[in-house]
């Protein structure tokens, strides 16, 4: 099962290495990992998506909490959360295809952020399924490049 784990970590050099190293050493599989600053200057938030049975994910949570620079760990499974992924994708799109591609983009509430004669770059954000869905519908046109942030998430108040 997929779990979104959110960890507040000290904003210090080497923290990412501590976390990534622990995952590798304990043979945990990371599906995605996103790191960024928070409202507090000296804390960052890592959002980690892991797939595993409950025992494994429980160990992931405990081993993360055990790392000295990790301040707080939450497993969002079963909680009301908003989870989002951001993607930039470049799609092959000659001028004659633009109308149909643009309507797809609209359906997915995407944004065209760059355009050239044969390609367009689109920004899409949303739950992971939506991103996957967009990739699927664009595939027939030819996908040149994909860059994704990995999931970030927050519980609803």
């Amino acid at each position, binding site marked *: 099962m997929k779990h979104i784990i959110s960890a507040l970590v000290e904003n210090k050099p080497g923290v990412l290495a501590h976390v990534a190293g*622990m995952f590798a050493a304990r043979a945990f599989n990371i599906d995605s990992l996103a790191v960024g600053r928070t409202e507090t200057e000296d804390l960052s938030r890592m959002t980690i998506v892991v797939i595993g049975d409950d025992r494994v994910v429980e160990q992931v949570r405990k*081993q993360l909490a055990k790392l*000295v620079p990790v301040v707080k760990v939450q497993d969002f499974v079963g909680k009301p959360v908003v989870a989002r992924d951001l993607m930039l994708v470049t799609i092959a799109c000659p001028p004659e295809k633009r109308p149909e591609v643009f309507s797809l983009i609209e359906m997915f509430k995407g944004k065209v952020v760059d355009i050239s004669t044969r390609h367009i770059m689109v920004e899409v954000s949303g739950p992971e399924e939506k991103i996957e869905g967009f990739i699927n519908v664009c595939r027939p046109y030819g996908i040149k490049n994909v860059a994704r942030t990995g999931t970030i998430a927050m519980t609803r108040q």
Partner: protein
Amino acid sequence: MGGKSTPTAKSPGKESNIKTGAQIVVDTLVDLGVDTMFGYLGGVVLPLFDRLYDAPFNFIIPRHEQGGCHMADAYARVTGKPGVVIATSGPGACNLITGLATAMMDSVPLVAFTGQVRTDLIGNDAFQEADTTGITRPITKHNCIVKDVKDLARTIREAFHIATTGRPGPVLIDLPVDVEVSQCDMSKVSQEIDLPGYRLKHRGHARQITNAAKAINKSDRPVLYVGGGVIAADAAQELRALVEKAHLPVSMTLMGLGAFDQTRPESLDMLGMHGSAYANYAIQECDLLVAIGSRFDDRVTGKVKAFAPQAKILHIDIDPSSISKNVNVDIPVVGDAKDILPRITELLEYRERKEWFEKIANWKKQFPLRYDPGDKVIKPQYVIERLWEATGGNAIVTTGVGQNQMWAAQFYKFHKPRHFISSGGLGTMGYGLPAAIGAQVGQPEAVVVDIDGDSSFNMTMTELSTAVQYELPIKVVILNNGYMGMVRQWQELFYNKRYSQSCLKNPEFAAVAEAMGAVGISVDKPQDVDKAIKQMLSQKRPCVVDFKVAREENVWPMVPAGKSLHEMDGLDIMESMA
């Protein structure tokens, strides 16, 4: 660096507030109560060693940094105080690896300082540069590099705090040489520990403690599975009170030996792969397994699915990640055994459990730990039994790894904690001799004996000259079977007696000892064993006794890898010796 405000430029009152990094290290360590250190020199730690020249430490220089790290580790194990070891950058730091991993696996409080190249050279493949924090991250409880002298004092305090609290472990501080020499106005920096992510759970949860006590009171066939955590917690007395109040049988892990007096009737001695048959049978038939400061290692559980199949599992441990890691726990109690045990004891009732104790007594009668003493060749087990007699069971025993270690665990009955010092988790050959040195430094009055294997001793025997230099009267008992005995045993049992590369040509260990300035004795007849032990124990100098023992003796019983605890091999052999 520095220069801006030299001490002379300040008023005399403030003079003492300006310190170099090296001075900060020394002063902070003194303030933390450190009086003993192990370490080795090198270019980038020279400023630090210059400060150590007139610092009030008992300083021990090993012959190899690995030895130094094991010494600091054993010093910590026997005293309960954190060990301190220093090494230079690059090769020095790399030589610490085995020692750090050994301490990590056995949860030993240790603080290691490594020198590092100048901060502006880091990452440039500078002379003797190694990414020490990168290399040691998975084998330390925590590590960090200090790049600003202002952080140094606080970081050292944090390192000692982390190493010694919660589940103890090694912490490494990497110290670039420019930080050692740069100056800091101590009146302007905070030395207060600042570790928002390091939270300790010391006190056990009240409801879980009630649940634990209820489960014990209800149990007809309980058994304790006591580990190194009880020794780390200094909770041997609390354990004894609990056992006496409720009347419970006690098995111990290799790391837990000494946590409970093995000469008492409740003791089932060691459990696991080479544990006693009566401990292993008790585990397999119990209805409640009470794990205290033990971590369900695969050497203990055998086949996990079939471990203690009838039992509810109660687990007391300070590290939440130890709980339900390998085996599902029914009643977890997270916290310090020292706090939890007395609180459970208070709620316990005495129960006779006559049937259960009778059953155990029968196993003890039928399958005692025994061996065929013979009379032509020295049996390794016999040497240990005689040593136990001669030392009244009071020696601090360190070990190598292999058969020697298992026989020491089986035949030397410990009655006090911090007396059996062995590399359990990593199984580091070569640990025994440096560990004996560290133990003797920590307990100068104790009789310290390294019970070692010939191949293990070969790995670090150079440290004998360290013992000679510091006039440490350690004793080394080599159970010399001329084999990597434990490996040979596996080859005999599982590889058709094909003894591939498991036999070394050893030097004459007694002659080596003499050459290094220690006393060397060699014995090959059973009737000379007692005399040699007596001679050894009377030495003021380090003494090595090379016991040429039976070459192909096996350790029994043995749970083959992947089997369950009751599927022990060798019981028939043991019975035939009756």
